[in-house]
């Protein structure tokens, strides 16, 4: 048996993504475990937050995926961009604005006189995390839904099952894979995020890590992060157990909604999207109006854009062999799984680990190059996931056909596989782009000195309490990200025509 050609590259990628973990292990090596019983309720909080967020993301993401995949809507693409837009907003910014807007004495109360419940604690944190992570579930579920053949729903209906019931009994069980893939990303994001639970006054594992970190007990922070990795490992295992039968692709369902159904959908989901995107922008604008415009250096937006764009390109280049390895065998699957760890490490710990790693490469240290490597390590799973799905759907006889027409494996890859999986590649690139745009810690610690991005700028003015100054960069972040999403969707459209 010859090894699949993608293995060496995938192995390399997996090993590189393991370097941060290796650094954590060396940092933690002189530390005894700091997991005491007191941490148990923190662990409980963490797991509850994770569970609630995953649940919330499924409750919002799956219906939206369903709508965007099956329901015949005017301006379909635009809706999709809007549904995915929350990914463009750093969750700590969302958390902060929601906190500021809600509750007695919040901005909504001040301006409109409507009393609103305050956003805090477990429920508040879960709501905020849900608002900023459900697009992960939406995107993965949507692509699963699009690959389903409609005939099974038709069969169920002719067997006397109503449409609504069919959705639950016939459609959803078949996209469990897609839902699980998205939920995994949500769970990892929730595990690694610090800002939101902290802002919502919820004690989670990351907070313990931050406390140790800020007390300069880097070893302990590393040790705790490693413990977090155990949870990540469990999640990866659980997710890989979830399997649905692979199906032949077919013509997807198209539903023509009635007027009242359209209104119902709008009434249900408009508030969610307004909350996730509208509210932060509105609050920032409000503060902008209060503080007055004090100038903004637009080159910062450019920094963000090109660094993220390069990261997106690099990430998909690395993701391609990893995705192919995952499809070629068991070992490859393991390599692919390994790349997910980077997504679950808290940002600041990851940032520091990469400082240690980066210092081994002095020529790269504090250059854009290292920053891009860092983005790639953190967000590789996003790219791998979507490249893998699109490759799974590629008809193997196309490559064979190119081979017998005289193309070497390499040429067949370049001329056939690559262009035909472009949809997944572009989608993956867009996700990496979005996450890189809002990434903070690695950017602060690893970017070139003086290199400022929209998210570091947002952080800076937020820390300083100059919230009004967050309006313009916040808006830019959303607009640029929306453009990236739009590009991603045109890629998708072009590909649909071809099939």
């Amino acid at each position, binding site marked *: 048996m010859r090894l699949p050609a993608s293995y060496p590259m995938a192995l390399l990628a997996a090993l590189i993504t393991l370097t941060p973990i290796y650094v954590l292990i060396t940092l933690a090596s002189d530390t005894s475990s700091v997991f005491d019983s007191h941490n148990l309720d923190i662990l409980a909080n963490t797991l509850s937050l994770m569970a609630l967020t995953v649940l919330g993301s499924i409750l919002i993401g799956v219906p939206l995926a369903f709508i965007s995949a099956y329901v015949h809507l005017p301006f379909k693409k635009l809706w999709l961009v809007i549904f995915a837009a929350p990914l463009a907003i750093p969750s700590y910014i969302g958390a902060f604005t929601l906190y500021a807007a809600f509750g007695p004495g919040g901005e909504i109360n001040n301006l409109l006189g409507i009393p609103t419940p305050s956003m805090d604690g477990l429920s508040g944190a879960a709501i905020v995390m849900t608002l900023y992570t459900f697009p992960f579930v939406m995107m993965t579920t949507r692509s699963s839904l699009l690959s389903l053949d409609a005939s099974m729903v038709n069969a169920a209906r002719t067997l006397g099952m109503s449409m609504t019931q069919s959705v639950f009994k016939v459609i959803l069980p078949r996209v469990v894979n897609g839902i699980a893939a998205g939920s995994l990303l949500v769970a990892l994001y929730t595990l690694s995020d610090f800002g939101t639970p902290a802002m919502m*006054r919820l004690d989670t594992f990351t907070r313990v890590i931050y406390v140790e970190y800020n007390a*300069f007990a880097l070893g302990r922070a590393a040790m705790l992060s490693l413990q977090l990795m155990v949870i990540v490992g469990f999640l990866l295992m659980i997710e890989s157990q979830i399997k649905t039968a692979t199906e032949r692709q077919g013509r997807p369902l198209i539903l023509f909604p009635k007027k009242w159904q359209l209104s119902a959908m709008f009434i249900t989901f408009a508030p969610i999207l307004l909350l996730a995107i509208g509210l932060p922008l509105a609050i920032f604008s409000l503060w902008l109006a209060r503080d007055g415009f004090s100038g903004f250096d637009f080159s910062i937006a450019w920094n963000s854009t090109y660094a993220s764009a390069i990261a997106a390109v690099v990430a998909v280049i690395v993701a391609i062999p990893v995705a192919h390895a995952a499809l070629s065998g068991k070992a490859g699957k393991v390599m692919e799984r390994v790349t997910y760890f980077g997504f679950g490490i808290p940002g*600041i710990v990851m940032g520091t680990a990469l400082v240690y790693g980066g210092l081994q490469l002095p020529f790269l240290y504090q250059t854009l190059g290292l920053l891009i490597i860092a983005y790639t390590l953190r967000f590789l799973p996003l790219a791998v996931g979507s490249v893998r799905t699109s490759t799974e759907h590629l008809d193997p006889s196309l490559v064979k056909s190119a081979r017998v027409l005289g193309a070497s494996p390499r040429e067949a890859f370049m001329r056939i596989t690559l262009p035909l999986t472009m949809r997944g590649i572009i989608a993956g690139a867009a996700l990496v782009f979005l996450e890189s745009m809002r990434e903070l810690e690695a950017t602060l610690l690893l970017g070139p000195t003086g290199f400022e991005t929209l998210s570091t700028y947002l952080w800076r003015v937020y820390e300083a309490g100059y919230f009004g100054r967050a309006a313009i960069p916040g808006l830019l972040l959303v607009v640029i990200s929306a453009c990236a999403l739009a590009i991603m969707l045109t890629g998708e459209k072009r590909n649909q025509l071809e099939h």
Partner: protein
Amino acid sequence: ANIANPVSVDSLPKLEGELTLYLGRGEGGLYENVLQAIEKKNPNLKLGIRRGPTAALANTIVAEAKAGVRRADLFWAVDSGAIGLVTDAGLAQPIPSDLSAQLQPQFRYKEWTPVTGRIRTLPYNTSRLTKEQIPTSIMEIADSDLSIGWAPAYASFQSFVTAMRILEGDDKTAKWLKKIKKRSKTYAGELGVVMGVERGEVDIGFANHYYTLRLKSGKPDAKLDLAFTQNDAGCLVNASGVLALSDDPLATNFMRYLLSTEVQSYLASEAYEIPLVNGISVPQGIPSLSSISPPKIDLTQLADLRPTIDLMRSSGVL
């Protein structure tokens, strides 16, 4: 001791060359204008700024040193713990005596120099309390029936607990923490504490002074005011500080700028920080340094965070 008068930037040597500053923690938004002004004044200065969470930058500096790489010439941190980490690692350059001479005696250190001060305060909600209802001893607050907002994970709070440990001992501190915990609401940061007080979520809070002043400047009718304790950790004056990592005189000279009249008064008036050099008035809204009675504590001692964290954890606060 004698305090040298602050100098004006006009009499300082021009800065020329390249300088990399690691600027910890975000008040950077406010420090930004200071840095810009310095750059404007010194067109030949190429100032590179790396901003980041204070602890992360301190860790980075230590890691860089371990790897034999030095990228930062200066480290300006808002928290003395971080400064302690770097000075303990033996990375800081000595401060010339003429520089520290400009500072009030209790703020003179060998390897770093404070830039501005921040006082621990008790922000309170004016519609729920009057100043008189607030005990003037931090220890007594634990026995009051006030509801309290705090941010135990915040570095300044931890420095305050360290001060309390030094002044009152571990046992008393632990008891105090436990009592407060019962009536407290935890926030992520002290801005949150102040906002919570203003909204009436709690009666009083523990926070650095500037959060209240900033909030009030954006919202003059806020139902918020500051109270102070006396002679205890509750009104500890802590400092943000700067240290030099390179022996280049340029780095030292840059520090001189930070202690100049102009910078100090700018920081006082715009950033609501407390000037530590002579002759500059404190920001509006707080009493002058002489009218409050902060505890006498060597700020370097506050860098010893470990026992504090352990104490706070065993008290169930962290």
